[in-house]
């Protein structure tokens, strides 16, 4: 039905319309900004405030003792482990003070350092209920995401309240050339959030209040040492990889493949050079092979490769896909160290410059592929309040320090060793009373009988008809050398190669028995390595490294085995051939759990899967041996 409004009703309708528009103006229009914000805006503000408040709970301001500078950090565990930059702790030494947004000052001790990656781990004392920051998956960060940095720029936080600056993620997976020092920033997150001297070591958060990076570096104008819109944060995924090793109080080195790569004219990444004693070489990699994937990433350029390589600690096992001729190979490579052990230690002591270091001359020449931002020195600042020079170290802190050459703080290595061993023995039981003869009998998958007998002096391993006997207290290197140089088939007509494999297996089993029977204290040269990804599921496992003359044993304790000793890789200096043993099918045997199956690999190639029919472990105690742990 048509609505016909008489003329006289027009005015009220127009009034009504104007009233509605006026009402809308009041509710939504710009004049209303002061009085009533739109709900959406209020919601976003509150979300931002909440995210920042969450992030600030775990942010730390670090004050170096004696007024040598400072920076920032982020607490990552409830009991106070905090991540920061190496260049923040380096002038501070082993003891420093930290403030948090709750207004309190905490003592802190150095735990571990990664000088090349510019990361360090410290531990705050005095609380078991710190609010830890969550380390997010930095691979999920996209350019254009908002982010915020929390820290102590210009050491402003005399009231212990950190500074918050906000910005965008300006770039991801950025590679920064080493600028003359040993520090190389790889795979980092670039941000335009204001990062200034003092922000170093502090967290970069996403808008959910999770850590996506640790701020550490900026690109500077040639003359002005303040933020120019370009800051870099070490990715949280890299920090996660190093965390275990840093917890072990170590001076952690970065990884190398033992090969140099270069991009060809067609854009293929080829091996230019390779060390013959590298694990990559042992796994078949040669010059001119093409790198297709590394660490789970498809590699399209040398920068990409360097980026992903730079996020790994020395010693990690990483998947590599390469093409040789027309065949593609998938292998797991054990990464070596960029520096020699002593070399790294010396580089660090050379780095310890006095606070008044002469400024580097601004670089005139720049290469097209990237600029060389200068290393940020810790600015010498006068320290206000209680943290002046001459502060004595509290006893609680002294108790957490054990100095030892080659370690940042050996106390924590002992702590982690004990933790790992306790967790292992809680589950697998103690083998300390089983110091007598061990006899294991079984078969390989194809039915070949296997006989092994072990005691503290000797190991005998027999596979089929071929037997290898090694005397452990005599010159082990010479015995292994003798086997490795054999070229003729053995008496039983087995290849010398097979004899070497059995020898490796024998050595591995003897090390396995040694650790179980002696325990970490008496084993001898044993230390906590840290965490690394192990196994098909690539779960983080603990690892101890023990050395027996020329043999190095990597003892792995996997979460999948509830922390029991479940794998062992043996590296022999002689000939570079070792073997990897994966223990499975743990069954109770007396008071202990004993693996009923061991899979043996060499250079990534499976050798045997041995199932034991009969395991006889004799009691007895070994005469104590070995030097300092």
């Amino acid at each position: 039905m048509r609505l016909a409004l008489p003329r006289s009703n027009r005015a009220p309708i127009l009034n009504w319309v104007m009233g509605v528009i006026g009402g809308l103006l009041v509710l939504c229009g710009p004049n209303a900004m002061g009085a009533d914000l739109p709900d959406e805006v209020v919601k976003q503000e509150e979300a931002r405030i909440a995210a920042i408040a969450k992030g600030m709970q775990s942010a730390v301001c670090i004050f170096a003792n004696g007024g040598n500078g400072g920076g920032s950090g982020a607490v990552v565990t409830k009991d106070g482990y905090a991540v920061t930059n190496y260049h923040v702790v380096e002038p501070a030494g082993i003891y420093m003070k930290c403030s948090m947004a709750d207004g309190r000052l905490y003592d802190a001790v150095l735990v571990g350092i990664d000088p090349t990656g510019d990361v360090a781990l410290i531990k705050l004392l005095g609380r078991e209920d710190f609010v830890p920051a969550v380390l997010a998956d930095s691979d999920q960060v996209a350019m254009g995401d908002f982010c915020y940095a929390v820290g102590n720029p210009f050491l402003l936080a005399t009231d212990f309240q950190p500074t918050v600056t906000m910005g965008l993620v300006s770039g991801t997976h950025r590679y920064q050339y080493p600028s003359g020092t040993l520090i190389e920033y790889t795979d980092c997150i670039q941000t335009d959030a204001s990062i200034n001297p003092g922000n170093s070591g502090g967290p970069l958060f996403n808008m959910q209040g999770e850590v996506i990076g640790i701020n550490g570096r900026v690109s500077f104008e040639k003359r002005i040492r303040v933020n120019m819109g370009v800051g870099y944060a070490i990715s949280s995924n890299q920090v996660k990889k190093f965390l275990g090793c840093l917890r072990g109080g170590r001076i952690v080195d970065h990884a190398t493949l033992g090969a140099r790569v270069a991009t060809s004219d067609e854009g293929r990444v080829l091996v230019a050079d390779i060390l013959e004693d590298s694990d990559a070489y042992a796994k078949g990699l040669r010059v001119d092979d093409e790198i297709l994937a590394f660490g789970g990433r498809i590699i399209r350029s040398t920068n990409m490769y360097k980026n992903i390589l730079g996020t790994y600690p020395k010693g990690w096992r990483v998947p590599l896909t390469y093409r040789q001729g027309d065949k593609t190979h998938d292998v797991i490579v054990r990464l070596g160290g960029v520096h020699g052990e002593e070399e790294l230690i010396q580089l660090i002591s050379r780095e310890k410059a006095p606070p008044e270091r002469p400024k580097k001359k601004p670089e005139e020449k720049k290469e097209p592929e990237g600029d060389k931002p200068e290393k940020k020195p810790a600015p010498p600042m006068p320290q206000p309040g209680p943290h002046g020079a001459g502060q004595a170290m509290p006893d609680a802190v002294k108790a957490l320090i054990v100095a030892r050459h080659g370690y940042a703080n050996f106390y924590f290595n002992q702590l982690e060793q004990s933790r790992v061993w306790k967790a292992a023995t809680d589950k697998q039981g103690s083998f300390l009373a089983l110091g007598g003869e061990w006899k294991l009998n079984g078969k390989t998958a194809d039915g070949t009988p296997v006989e092994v007998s072990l005691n503290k002096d000797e190991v005998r391993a027999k596979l089929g008809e071929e037997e290898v006997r090694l005397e452990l207290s005599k010159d082990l290197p010479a015995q292994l050398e003798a086997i490795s140089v054999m070229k003729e088939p053995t008496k039983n007509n087995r290849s010398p190669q097979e004899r070497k494999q059995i020898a490796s297996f024998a050595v591995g089993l003897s090390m396995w028995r040694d650790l179980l029977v002696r325990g970490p204290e008496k084993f001898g040269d044993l230390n906590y390595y840290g965490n690394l990804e192990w196994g098909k599921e690539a779960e983080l496992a603990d690892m101890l490294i023990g050395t027996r003359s020329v043999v190095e044993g990597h003892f792995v304790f996997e979460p999948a085995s509830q922390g029991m000793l479940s794998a062992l890789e043996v590296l022999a200096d002689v000939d570079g051939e070792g073997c990897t043993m994966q223990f499975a099918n743990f069954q109770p045997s007396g008071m202990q759990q004993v693996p009923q199956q061991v899979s043996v690999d060499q250079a990534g190639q499976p050798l045997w899967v041995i199932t034991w029919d009969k395991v006889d472990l004799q009691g007895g105690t070994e005469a104590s041996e070995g030097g300092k742990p």
Partner: protein
Amino acid sequence: MMQLRFALLAVLVAIGVFCRPVGAQTSLAAAQRLVEPKLVKIYGAGGSRGLESYQSGFLISADGEILTAFSYVLDGDATTVLLSDGRKLTAEVRGIDPRLEIALLKVDAQDLPHFNLQEAVKLEVGSRVLAFGNVYGIATGDEPLSVLRGIVSAKTTMAARSGAYATPYRGSIYVLDALTNNPGAPGGVVTNRSGALAAMLGKELRSSQTGALLHYGVPVEELVGAVEDLRAGKTRPLARDERAKRPKDAHSLEMLGVRLVLDLLPRTPPYVDGVKRGSIAERAGLKSDDLVLMVNGRMASSCKAVREEVGYIDQVDEVRLMVQRGKELLEIVLMP
């Protein structure tokens, strides 16, 4: 009836106008993904005495026309462009506009994502923007250019004057509150938060007193006309014949009666400082404060370059100068 419909329509329009929903803003990643494929990295001459040999640019046509800031990076013989996907192409300098200091490059490619200059948006003071540029040359290969966020602090005109400032540009600019124009950024883009093109990041300009960089963009509407001219082939710089030799008796600025400003900067803009009385230059109408842009059809954007170009012209030949006087472009012919 009409009144009721009108009323309802008015109400709906009012709702639409006044109640614009505020989008969830924890990420501008979508805008970055939209813009990045249209950007290029440019590499060329330079790389010494503190000057970078890289800058940024953006595609304005599907077949590979690129707009960028004109700078010394483009001076050399070989200009290389990296597309967003990492493809490396040789670029030809198709045209240069000396007043706007922009250059049009061309690479040989098809079906490239690009900006349409006609669809550029205008910004206001307070507009929230994103700036894209290869600051510090951080991005190489197929890595994306850096993205920064900021707002338009001011919309104003450049008041370039002889000597103190290093640009002849007199048009309007957006001054930004973000640190956008770092080395490597010139030729990059300023967009709104949805990734729509608004301006080009201009060439590096520093205050001679403080050394501070000016962070600014040149609005696209200032450039559109000039770009069309460049596309049409006007102001194409002539290539000097490789075998050309200096004439035995060439012109010189002194003989012509032209005195340029003191050559103090690495590339001093060639402003005329004075014209000798009774000289060829005075007769031709050259005046103080004129800025020389081209000599006989060839770009000459520094005192050195002007001197050099003049030295290739035989004394018996005329010298055609294109100069900027105030906002005008004039041709001045010096006849011997």
